[in-house]
């Protein structure tokens, strides 16, 4: 009998898992994908730590955003997660007028957002000389920041894992049912797990699990796709702050944001789609990103695009995060419908639900909880002295595998060997940035495949891009002719 089963190893499931790992509890996380942070929302979003001006006062979104934001400094220091308070600017352009900015300021005050300032055109241009010519003013949010969302998820999960939480990947939950005074969770391979409590952190599929066990609130997740362009790190400093435009009823609009890795992100679109897995990019969507982003950044260097991608946000039909224990399903805890500002809210949601579940179970705090997680050394960011020391300790750090992002063999082996280590090419990429640079894995993918094979005892034809049926190679040369 488990104390708790968490469905989903996205940023929310992982944050809750880490909170529970502080207590004397037997916790299991079940994740359908081959890697944590690979469900679609936690890996492909705008990577912003929001100040909290946008959500409607009184909602869970507003509450947990404002609670979550100040938690990032300590959390990111403990878990060595790349994070920077680069501030956010919501910019008004000619035709918008400034009223929208004043309204957001008012809303921010109601939500308890600190360090806000309304900027006139002159001050805005002094802060951001590259802002589009039609900008007329802005709301400056001093607590706005940027974070690496998948590294944050992986860090939370790794730390939970090191503190005793068990993770099962490639394990899809198909059913939850009441079993006397507890719950039975069944997975796709037919295994049945008994547990005192269940956490629904299933992101895009959190509606399915809520509706399976509770009638209190009927939840539908309405998938909304966001497409993005990524611009080369040569443009890291085009803007200091994250540049928002005035929000619309479809969300916070198209923004231009540097990332903690130095690239620049343009997006997202907001398209209501039918298929929760439809992370395709489209010609129309990408054109839409460009058209809107050009208002903020007129000279977008199209020659320096390094990629495009899409994520799907789990928009709840209720309009707000669905959190806590429904009355008709005791021991079942929702962390459902977590769309933006879910990333910012994750630490606060983790703490809130972690406390709630621990109270329910009467769990004691662990004496030996280790709050620290050591990140993979980022060779590209080290001083020459640190580099020399690292290579002396392990020569694998003296061999570059990814030239564009200066990623060493040592980092790649570390990414595979660590808790919840990488099992496929994209998992290595998310952990190390190998393949995320200008050549987009042209040079390094054959070497990474080789290292994955060495470390995991795989044949090259078994190595996948991201699990499932995404094998990179279809066979050996000559094998067909020989009838093999």
């Amino acid at each position, binding site marked *: 009998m488990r104390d708790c089963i968490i469905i989903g190893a996205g940023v929310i499931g992982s944050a809750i898992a880490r909170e529970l790992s502080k207590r004397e509890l037997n916790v299991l996380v079940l994740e359908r994908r081959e890697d944590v942070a690979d469900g679609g929302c936690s890996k492909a979003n705008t990577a912003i730590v929001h100040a909290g001006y946008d959500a409607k006062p009184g909602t869970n979104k507003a509450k947990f955003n404002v609670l979550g934001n100040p938690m990032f400094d300590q959390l990111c220091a403990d878990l060595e997660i790349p994070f920077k308070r680069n501030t956010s600017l919501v910019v008004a352009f000619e035709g918008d007028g400034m009223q929208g900015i004043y309204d957001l300021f008012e809303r921010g005050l109601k939500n308890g957002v600190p360090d806000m300032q309304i900027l006139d055109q002159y001050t805005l241009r002094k802060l951001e000389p590259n802002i589009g010519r039609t900008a007329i003013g802005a709301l400056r949010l001093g607590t706005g920041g940027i974070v690496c969302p998948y590294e944050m998820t992986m860090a939370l999960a790794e730390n939970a894992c090191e503190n005793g939480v068990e993770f099962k990947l490639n394990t899809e939950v198909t059913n939850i049912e009441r079993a006397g005074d507890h719950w039975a969770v069944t997975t796709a391979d037919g295994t049945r797990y008994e547990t005192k409590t269940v956490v629904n952190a299933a992101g895009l599929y959190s509606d399915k699990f809520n509706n399976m066990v509770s009638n209190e609130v009927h939840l539908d997740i309405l998938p909304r796709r966001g497409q993005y362009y990524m611009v080369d790190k040569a443009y890291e400093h085009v803007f200091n702050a994250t540049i928002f435009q005035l929000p619309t009823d479809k969300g916070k609009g198209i923004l231009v944001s540097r990332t903690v890795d130095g690239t620049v992100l343009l997006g997202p679109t907001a398209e209501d789609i039918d298929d929760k897995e439809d992370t395709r990019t489209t010609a129309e969507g990408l054109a839409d990103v460009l058209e809107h982003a050009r208002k903020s950044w007129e000279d977008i260097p199209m*020659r320096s695009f390094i*990629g*495009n991608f899409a994520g799907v946000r789990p928009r709840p039909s209720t309009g707000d995060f669905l959190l806590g224990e429904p009355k008709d399903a005791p021991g079942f805890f929702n962390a459902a419908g977590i769309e933006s500002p879910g990333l910012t809210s994750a630490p606060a949601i983790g703490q809130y639900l972690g406390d709630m579940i621990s109270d329910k179970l009467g769990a004691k705090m662990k004496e030996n909880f280790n709050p620290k997680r050591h990140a993979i050394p980022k060779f590209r960011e080290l001083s020459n002295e640190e580099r020399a020391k690292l290579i002396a300790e392990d020569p694998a750090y*003296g061999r570059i595998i990814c030239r564009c992002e200066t990623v060493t*063999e040592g980092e790649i082996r570390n990414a595979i060997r660590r808790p919840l280590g990488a099992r496929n090419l994209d998992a290595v990429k998310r952990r190390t940035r190998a393949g995320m640079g200008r050549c987009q894995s042209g040079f390094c993918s*054959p070497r990474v495949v080789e290292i994955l094979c060495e470390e995991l005892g795989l044949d090259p034809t078994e190595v996948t891009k991201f699990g499932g049926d995404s094998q990179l190679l279809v*066979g050996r040369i000559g094998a067909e*002719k020989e009838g093999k």
Partner: protein
Amino acid sequence: MREVDVLIIGGGPAGLAAAVAAKEAGIDNLLVLEREDKPGGILKQCIHNGFGLRMFGEELTGPEYAQRYIDKAEALGVPIQCDTMVLSVTGDRVVTSINPEKGLEQFQAKAIVLAMGCRERPRGALGIPGWRGAGIYSAGTAQRFVNLEGLMPGRKIVILGSGDIGLIMARRMTFEGCEVKACVELMPFSSGLKRNIVQCLDDYGIPLMLNHTVVDIAGRDRVTGVTIAEIDPKTKKPIAGTEQYIECDTLLLSVGLIPENELSTGAGVDISRSTQGPVVDETLATSVEGIFAAGNVLHVHDLVDFVSEEAATAGRTAAEYVKSGAKSGGKRVPVEEGFGVGGCVPQYINLDAVKEPVKFMFRPRDVYKAARICVDVDGEEVLRGKPHMIMAPGEMAELTVDPEVFPSRPDMGKVTVRLEVK
């Protein structure tokens, strides 16, 4: 910090030829730094023949061609340090590198030859929409998997772009029993060599679809097909209604090569927008004192023989620079790209230093019939080349000009290289 007279960054065809030339010009304290575990660069995976016709008068494979230079370097005692990645080059020629055994090293060089080569343009740079599953490779990556690892990236292939590596891979994959369904090219002409179109596509009945591009990629986990469409040559946009779906499991990209100049930029070397390589004079000296460049890092070549020739010049001029202790300098006259000329090298002529014939290399901007290369000085024609039957962007054009052609006028303003088409 170790002192080196001539330090060569890169042990591919350019680096090897530069090193051999520098050694032959009397430099003994020289060193080649190569990032891979063996020298030879991209030639290691180019197992087809067609290399060396100009340089050796015979058809060699890539590895054979590279071996000629490796043997020569060995015979001359040129040290090549492999498994060594250069992390940075400064404007005063301090080079920092790492190697698993030697750790982090720093070199103070009197002269540096940049020979880092180029990389392939990836899908992201094109913004092709669709799924992002497995099965999308740049042609060179696929070539490495097949030729060096013996692994097959797919069975049913569509190739986007008609660069030489894509064309070579069309034939290579066909040899391995794959079905290569089409080679799709956005432009109205191929960017590859004519001989490769004939020998790698035509001979195997693989259609070359000019004015076409890929507009969508299907297949969530692995590519299952691509949608292609015809392009309006004027707007370069797909024409609605011309879409057709081609079932395939692999999309190979051969959509251009980009000189790898991250280190050059770090050293403060000026980069040309036209070639995407360093701006150089006829000695292949860059804008930074004592730093020279050659090969695909300078501009993307069509034939390796040209790379070797050019790199030998850089090796020799770097050696002369060190031996004479001379500063570069003197009056540099800009070379302007006139009609039909793109990516012209060199971008400057050092009038005070020109003693030897100057070789201009460039890519014609379009396909031209009966065109000749002309050189003007301040708008006045000083040289008319012989007419060429056909000139195309896929084939590099070259013209060697004797130094006496340039009038010794101190007020000379610019040199223009242009095409004249009847």
